[in-house]
């Protein structure tokens, strides 16, 4: 119980920290924040339920007015934009990512966590964000998808990195990777 709670709380803090750290370039030339990488890692390391709870906790603290989103944003206002579908999609993204890692037991963890992040952190996330944007900004499917297209390459890279980082954590602290416990 205590361990679950502290892991959930520390990963909520990790999502925030990855968005707030002084800019480090993820890949040369493409400045993207590591915040969604944090969402993916919640799933791959904590597993479905705990991962989703960590994300919900993070979002609750953003909502009450802490500047935890990348770039120091926060407050209720960030939930009322047409792009808020990304935020509302975060818990589902972490849950599905964690579920894939929990169910897919045999094989290379880099591959498993990478594919899980692709399905949850990219697939599920956009499946929530695009319809939300269509309603919020009154756009068609094609236009909404085109608007989001610039973010896709960065998210694909992050899914690959989530795989690599998860494998590295598994090597260093196998007992802390709760999704495999």
């Amino acid at each position: 119980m205590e361990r679950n709670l502290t892991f959930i709380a520390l990963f909520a803090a990790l999502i925030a920290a990855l968005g707030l750290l002084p800019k480090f370039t993820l890949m040369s030339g493409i400045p993207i924040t590591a915040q969604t990488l944090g969402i993916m890692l919640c799933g791959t390391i904590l597993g479905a339920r705990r991962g989703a709870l960590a994300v919900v906790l993070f979002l609750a603290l953003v909502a009450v007015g802490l500047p935890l989103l990348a770039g120091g944003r926060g407050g209720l206002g960030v939930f009322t934009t047409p792009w808020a579908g990304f935020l509302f999609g975060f818990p589902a993204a972490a849950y599905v990512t964690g579920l894939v890692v929990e169910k897919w037991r045999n094989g290379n963890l880099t591959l498993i966590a990478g594919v899980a992040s692709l399905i949850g952190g990219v697939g599920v996330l956009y499946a929530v964000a695009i319809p939300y944007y269509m309603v919020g900004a009154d756009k068609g499917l094609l236009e909404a998808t085109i608007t989001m297209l610039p973010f896709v390459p960065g998210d694909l890279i992050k899914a690959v990195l989530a795989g690599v980082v998860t494998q590295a954590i598994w090597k260093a602290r196998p007992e802390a990777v709760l999704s495999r416990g």
Partner: protein
Amino acid sequence: MLALTLPRRTWAHDIQAGWKLGALAIASALLFPVDDLWVLSAALLAVVALHLVSGLDVLRYALWMMKPIVFFAAIIGVYHLATWDVAAGAAIVLRMLLLVALANFVTMTTALDSMIAVIEWLLRPLRRLGVNTHAIGLAIAMVIRFTPALVQKGAALIESWRARSAKRPGWRITIPVCLLALDDAEHVSEALRARGGLTTRNRT
């Protein structure tokens, strides 16, 4: 870590957080289906007036908080100019600015602890289902405490990377930052257990 609340008190601080959040929910629901430019412009003027009544510094702070939204609003605006659909574009942009400004106003004028009190109040029905709401309060406190600590440790890691390498710190820095978070989580859970752990019953 500083919350996004205004650095000084205004008349709006004195209204209970629950009322403000309720009013915000109702106003947002009412404004969302509105397409009429006159109604939206009038509402925006009203929101600006709401800020001005509180002081010029409040309006300036609000504009600062709106900065990232303005960029996206500009994209939508340019798109609609290009497709000669100006009226629809103006309605979308106005509505978006309105909803965000209203929500930000509540954030600016509500102290962090009153917001957390609202969360605790909302969670109360969960107690009946056997959920330990005390644990949720503890988790919130831990995130508030550990986020700046992690950011600080992460920044130190980036500094030491820069001291040793000509290359810029890349994504690899996330691995030690993750390990720091995991180790902190283990230590805190042990410390909690050593002090008797989480009580399963809710404190009254």
